[in-house]
């Protein structure tokens, strides 16, 4: 594998990765901006429109006809969040030219299609074309309505919105029904022009062999684009509330959900991640072994640490009558780590699991750009081995200190309705 990252315009990074084992190419463009409630829905709809149509293939039907003729090439978009930032990605993948039965130059055609999506959207009356805009707006509104369909992710969203309220990270990255409803084809297009001008942009191209076409194409296109990028801050720890905030809602469900949000004022993100691993990220973690296996209270009881906000979440699905029992045991297990009551084996298991995950980077075309994006957010480009070495340096005392820095902030309960 060979990689090279250059800046092709002001705050526009271009990462080129060559790995001959792949049969496919992957081109991704990421726009990174502050998660601003004024613009989140505009941005989300805009990126939806540009990832499904352009001025040449100006309807979803025409675009899909073209993509399927290019051996089912993919063009997709994701609106997500990283800490206080909104991250909007347009991603495309296609099979390498070697596998084209009729000898087409799929890569040339796909690079051109993606270029046209980014720089030549279908514009009418100073806004996105009404038909394409309406489709994406409906899609977003439906997505907002569908939040409730997946009860586990809904519970996590509700808990984090409470824990991070008044912070950009507390805003859903695609907005609310209210913000989505007021978006117009013109406001979405204005927002998109702002993204092109103001966002930090990261482009990545993964290919089985050296090919400068994508870099040249985007370098040329950005040379004609006015840029005035805004600074973005990747890590902004969330302030800890003086008192735990407990919220609950009753829904007609069979299984209750609990989400416990903890915050830390420690900068030792490596030690905090190890606390999370030992506590509840693996099938040999304290929560899995005790809350699930020994006490049979739940099917899942899992932990996740988010470095951008220094937030640790623990979520579980339990019977209503067992909520208190599960919560007591979760707190007891965290206390065990705070007291240093974890074995060398538990620490080694956590490290082995991380080592396994880091060593897997590079086995899919999407994993390289993801890794480098994470490094960019951390402010330091490291190889997976270098990053793992940072975890190896973490002492038991650092883990104990990190665990003691965690303070309960928000507890959320989804309760089943009484019969």
């Amino acid at each position, binding site marked *: 594998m060979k990689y090279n990252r250059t800046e092709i315009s002001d705050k526009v990074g271009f990462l080129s990765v060559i790995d001959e*084992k792949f*049969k496919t190419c992957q081109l991704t463009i990421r726009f990174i901006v502050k998660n601003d409630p004024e613009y989140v829905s505009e941005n989300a709809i805009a990126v939806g429109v540009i990832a499904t149509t352009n001025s040449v293939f100006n309807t979803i039907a025409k675009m899909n006809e073209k993509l*399927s003729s290019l051996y089912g090439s993919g063009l997709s978009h994701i609106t997500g969040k990283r800490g206080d930032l909104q991250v909007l990605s347009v991603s495309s993948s296609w099979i390498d030219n070697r596998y084209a039965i009729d000898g087409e130059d799929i890569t040339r055609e796909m690079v051109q299609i993606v270029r046209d999506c980014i720089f030549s959207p279908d514009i009418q009356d100073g806004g996105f074309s009404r038909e394409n805009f309406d489709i994406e707006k409906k899609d977003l509104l439906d997505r907002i309505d569908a939040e409730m369909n997946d009860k586990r992710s809904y519970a996590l969203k509700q808990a984090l919105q409470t824990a991070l309220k008044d912070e950009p990270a507390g805003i859903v990255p695609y907005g609310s029904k209210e913000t989505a409803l007021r978006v117009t084809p013109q406001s979405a297009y204005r927002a998109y022009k702002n993204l092109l001008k103001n966002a930090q942009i990261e482009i990545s191209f993964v290919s089985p062999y050296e090919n400068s076409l994508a870099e040249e194409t985007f370098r040329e296109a950005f040379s004609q684009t006015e840029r005035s990028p805004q600074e973005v801050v990747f890590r902004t720890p969330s302030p800890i509330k003086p008192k735990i905030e407990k919220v609950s809602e009753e829904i007609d469900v069979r299984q209750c959900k609990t989400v416990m949000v903890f915050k830390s004022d420690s900068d030792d993100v490596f030690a905090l991640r190890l606390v999370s691993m030992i506590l509840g990220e693996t099938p040999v973690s304290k929560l899995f072994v005790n809350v699930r296996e020994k006490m049979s209270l739940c099917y899942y009881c899992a932990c996740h640490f988010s470095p951008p906000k220094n937030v640790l979440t623990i979520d579980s699905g339990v019977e209503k009558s067992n909520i208190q029992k599960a919560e007591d045991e979760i707190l007891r297990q965290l206390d065990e780590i705070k007291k240093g009551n974890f074995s060398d084996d538990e620490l080694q298991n956590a490290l*082995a*699991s991380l080592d396994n995950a880091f060593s897997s980077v590079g086995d899919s075309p999407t994993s390289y750009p993801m890794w480098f994006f994470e490094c960019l957010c951390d402010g330091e480009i490291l190889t997976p081995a270098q990053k793992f070495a940072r975890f190896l340096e973490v002492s038991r005392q650092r883990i104990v200190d990190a665990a003691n820095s965690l303070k309960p902030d928000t507890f959320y309960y989804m309760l089943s309705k009484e019969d």
Partner: protein
Amino acid sequence: MQKNVITSSATGDKCIHVKHDSGLDIYICEMHGFSTVEALFGTKYGSINTMFRQKGDTEYTEVPEGIAHFLEHKLFENEDCDVFELYAKTGANGNAFTSFDKTAYIFSCSKNYQESLRILLNFVQEPYFTQETVDKEQGIIGQEIQMTNDNPEWRVFFNMLRCMYHNHPVKIDIAGTIESIAQIDADLLYKCYNTFYNLNNMVLSIAGNINADEVLAICDECLKTCEDKGLETVFPDEPDEIVQSEIYEKQPVGTSVFHIGFKCKTCSGVERLKKSVTASVAMSILCDASTDMYRRLLKDNVINSTFGGEVFCGDGYFTVIFSGDSSKPEVIRENILAETERLKSEGIDDKMFQRIKKSAYGSMVRELNNVEAVANTMMNSHMEGVSPYDAIKFTSELKSDDVLSFIRDELRGDRLVMSVIEGTVES
């Protein structure tokens, strides 16, 4: 030990098939340049296998719903330790799943694959069940069942199957019910284990950063030869007709979700794979995002980007399913029926057919890029009775007339079922 190299004429990819002396079929794909390994040790035993007998048995044994899944959970406990503790030492990520027609134990790792493979082969061959551990598991699986009962995608799918199948056990939930798993005890688990976890009924599939000779040496070391006991599974007779054409259920969801499925005739082995490839292309011709129907429904706010389709088939069941979120599923059903009738009378546009075929070929090439997908394809193909690269071959050989015949014969209005989960939440 018989060893064959299987090669894809379309892409040049290769894998090895070995019929091991123990009775086990082994598939190995060395993927140069990759760092991970994916291994699956699977048995042809899933939720539909509720009635079976072996050579010498006069009667069929009938077992409670959800027992294959329960057994999968319990196999992770050995007499002296938990299997996850063993994997934790190697860093491998261990897991398992039970589907309608198979159970598979999996690990993925990027280091020490040899030791992880020993763990996998050994623990699956060493069951240890006690009444105490069975009782403990009922609480955990009970919560898993409740979780899926709250999942609208799960409910809408099983409601559809219940409207489609009169007798076939595909209509029962993979995990069973709280009541059915209460009937499971250690003896029943041993009975099922000894029947289905015979190496002659199993397959090992391993792909990625491996060496075939090393894999085979570990298999020689760990596999215990099994006598083929002539396992026979049976399914109740299933009429071609559906049970009822529609079902609605209310749940606390923000958007209504639907499944619209055609009940098709069943077949097995190579015929099923050919039919499944044909059905996939037929479905794309009906509802691909480039079709007039898709465009019309999108423009009229009837569907959104969640709309799509899949072919769902196995022993004794074959369906073509359209699904997504919509508040107007009846309109979608009308459009699907109208479009199938139009295709039946007007035929298939050849340009479109060639394009959809290319797209299907492209997605199969993509799967060969992925260690996990390669390991899964090898296992699934073996269980289907076909070769791992047959799907690409059949796709390239597919004719427009085959697809039209499928649409004419199988996509019938009187075999159509619609299942809807409607919201109780104001949006």
